[in-house]
């Protein structure tokens, strides 16, 4: 089956600056594809090239197998939800949603019917006569999506549409967007710098940095099996240490951090050899905390230290543990099952983790 969208060797240069550097990817029909990256990584440029507001320096964009490079933005079978939504303030809601249909010269009664259907679909029936600025942030969001969906595009582009919303609403809209995508059964290309938006909604995520795709995969892949130090650092939170590799044996390795802590880990197939400088990443939730050292016998990394800070944050509560010998602070997830409710600053605790949970990358590779 031809993918809905395929980019081949897409490159965009502005003078000496390369915003997008030889990016290729394809998005299967009906899937939710996210491009995740820090601001300035080139993700907006990719989106604007797909929509037709910028011409690629080289490379090709195909939609349903046909190149769209020669089509102007108003003739492309893609629609875009803009970052600040770009609802037309001079029109009411119904006219906003009907705008594209009027451009297609549909008869009036048909436009009215489709607009009503779209309003039903987004759960806002009967608001057609309202003005844009009478709606709440979440309602505007849904109208902006409906305005595109009535066009029945092959691909819907969304440019950080949740950025302007407050936290609660953003959490809610994540779920709703995913539901809308399933309901409309359309391919969504979503760009964001917020990893949680990407992880929750996407079928596939591409992590982008400095104009290139670092890794493409499911959220689970990116989180547990990052391909690069950048992905490991950017997606999720990690303890990060730099050090020298002392020993590599098969899949097992040992590394001593610059502060003198010895860590055991797995190479996960990466080419690492003794004497290399490397970064190791360990997620706080991969570390087990206990008051009784004997519980940690199955782990190959075990440390005893004192609690220096309690970072209470509900289910995501953590503690900082200072290693007695290396004087290094380690962030550890604190289970909220009750057994650590009495934990206080200065208490001695034991922590441990399996070496396979660590991800190690040679320095300079990112």
């Amino acid at each position: 089956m031809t993918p809905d969208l395929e980019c081949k060797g897409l490159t965009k240069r502005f003078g000496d600056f390369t915003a997008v550097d030889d990016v290729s990817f394809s998005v299967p029909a009906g899937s939710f594809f996210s491009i995740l990256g820090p601001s300035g990584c080139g993700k907006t440029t990719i989106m604007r090239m797909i929509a037709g507001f910028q011409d690629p320096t080289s490379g090709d964009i195909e939609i349903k197998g046909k190149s769209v490079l020669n089509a102007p933005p108003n003739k492309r079978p893609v629609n875009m939800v803009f970052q600040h939504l770009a609802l037309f303030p001079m029109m009411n809601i119904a006219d906003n949603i009907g705008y594209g249909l009027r451009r297609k010269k549909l008869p009036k009664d048909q436009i009215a019917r489709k607009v009503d259907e779209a309003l039903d679909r987004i759960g806002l029936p009967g608001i057609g006569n309202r003005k844009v600025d009478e709606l709440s942030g979440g309602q505007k969001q849904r109208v902006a999506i409906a305005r595109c969906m009535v066009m029945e595009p092959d691909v819907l582009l969304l440019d950080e549409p949740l950025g302007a919303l407050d936290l609660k609403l953003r959490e809610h809209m994540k779920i709703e967007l995913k539901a809308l995508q399933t309901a409309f059964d359309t391919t969504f290309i979503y760009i964001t710098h917020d990893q949680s938006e990407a992880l929750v909604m996407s079928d596939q995520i591409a992590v982008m940095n400095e104009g290139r795709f670092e890794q493409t995969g499911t959220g689970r892949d990116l989180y547990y099996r990052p391909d690069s130090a950048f992905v490991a650092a950017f997606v999720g939170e990690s303890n990060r240490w730099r050090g020298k590799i002392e020993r590599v044996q098969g899949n097992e390795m040992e590394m001593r951090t610059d502060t003198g802590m010895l860590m055991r880990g797995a190479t996960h197939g990466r080419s690492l050899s003794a004497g290399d400088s490397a970064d190791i990443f360990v997620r706080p939730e991969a570390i087990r905390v206990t008051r009784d050292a004997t519980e940690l016998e199955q782990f190959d990394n075990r440390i005893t230290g004192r609690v220096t800070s309690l970072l209470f944050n509900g289910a995501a509560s953590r503690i900082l543990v200072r290693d007695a010998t290396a004087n290094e602070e380690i962030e550890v997830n604190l289970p909220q099952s009750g057994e650590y409710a009495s934990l206080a600053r200065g208490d001695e605790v034991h922590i441990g983790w399996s070496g396979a949970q660590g991800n190690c990358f040679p320095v300079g590779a990112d």
Partner: protein
Amino acid sequence: MQSGTRLGFYLLLTPLVLWLALLIVIPHIDMFLVSLRERVGVRQYETSFANYLTFFTEPLYIWTFVRTAVMSVLATIITLLIAFPVSLYIAKIARGRLGQVLFVLCLIPFYVSELVRTFGWMILLRETGLVSNLLQWAGLADQPVEMLYNDAAIMIGLVYTSMLFMVVPLVTTLESLDDSVIEAGYDLGGNGFSVLREIIIPHAAPGIVSGSIVVFMLSLGNYLTPTILGGKDSLWFTEMIYNQFIVRFNWELGAAFGFMLLILSSLIVWGMLKLTRQSLEETMG
């Protein structure tokens, strides 16, 4: 009265009230009263509508009045049509440094006295002027052509003089239109024409209205341009007012004329605001 003292309030209120009362409101009331006076003898007056009757029964006066209004409306429309593409270019296409430079270039001529601008058109258009010479040189005319002292010359001068007051509000409103709104229009299948008609022009409406009001007012109240470029018989209403006041010394009739001009301009401004559902505060303030 949440902030400041009562004394402060009256200190700030006084200059405003003095200004508006002594220079705007009372003078206009007085002018209206004078326009209602009919001279029946030496320093003897009666209250009557005689001056207005004169205005409405003398075809020359009515004709000049209507002509001034129509020409001013026409000047406003032409100015708008010329200024809109230019403003769109400055606000949305040139942008950045070039946009700023073009905008300043638009402003500079209007810091120069209207007299100088009109004088320039005189040098260009008169019989011995540049355009006439150019036409002869190009073989399009075999003798000097007089291009002054006709309605077209007046129109050129009025449009030129008013241009700034249209460009500034248009550029300001057009700059406030977010690019992504225009892009959304295209993204949803619109073309240049439909985006202009459904998105850009509705957005620019406040600028169009305030620009049009100012240009209309300036044309209607203009004295210099019609007198210099239109010559003695240019039949502009402000000239009639001037003549009644300064040449004939008939202040009563002059005041009536002045009042008619005021009513005409207020009506048109009011009508324009009503038509576009805007208020004077939004448009001017």
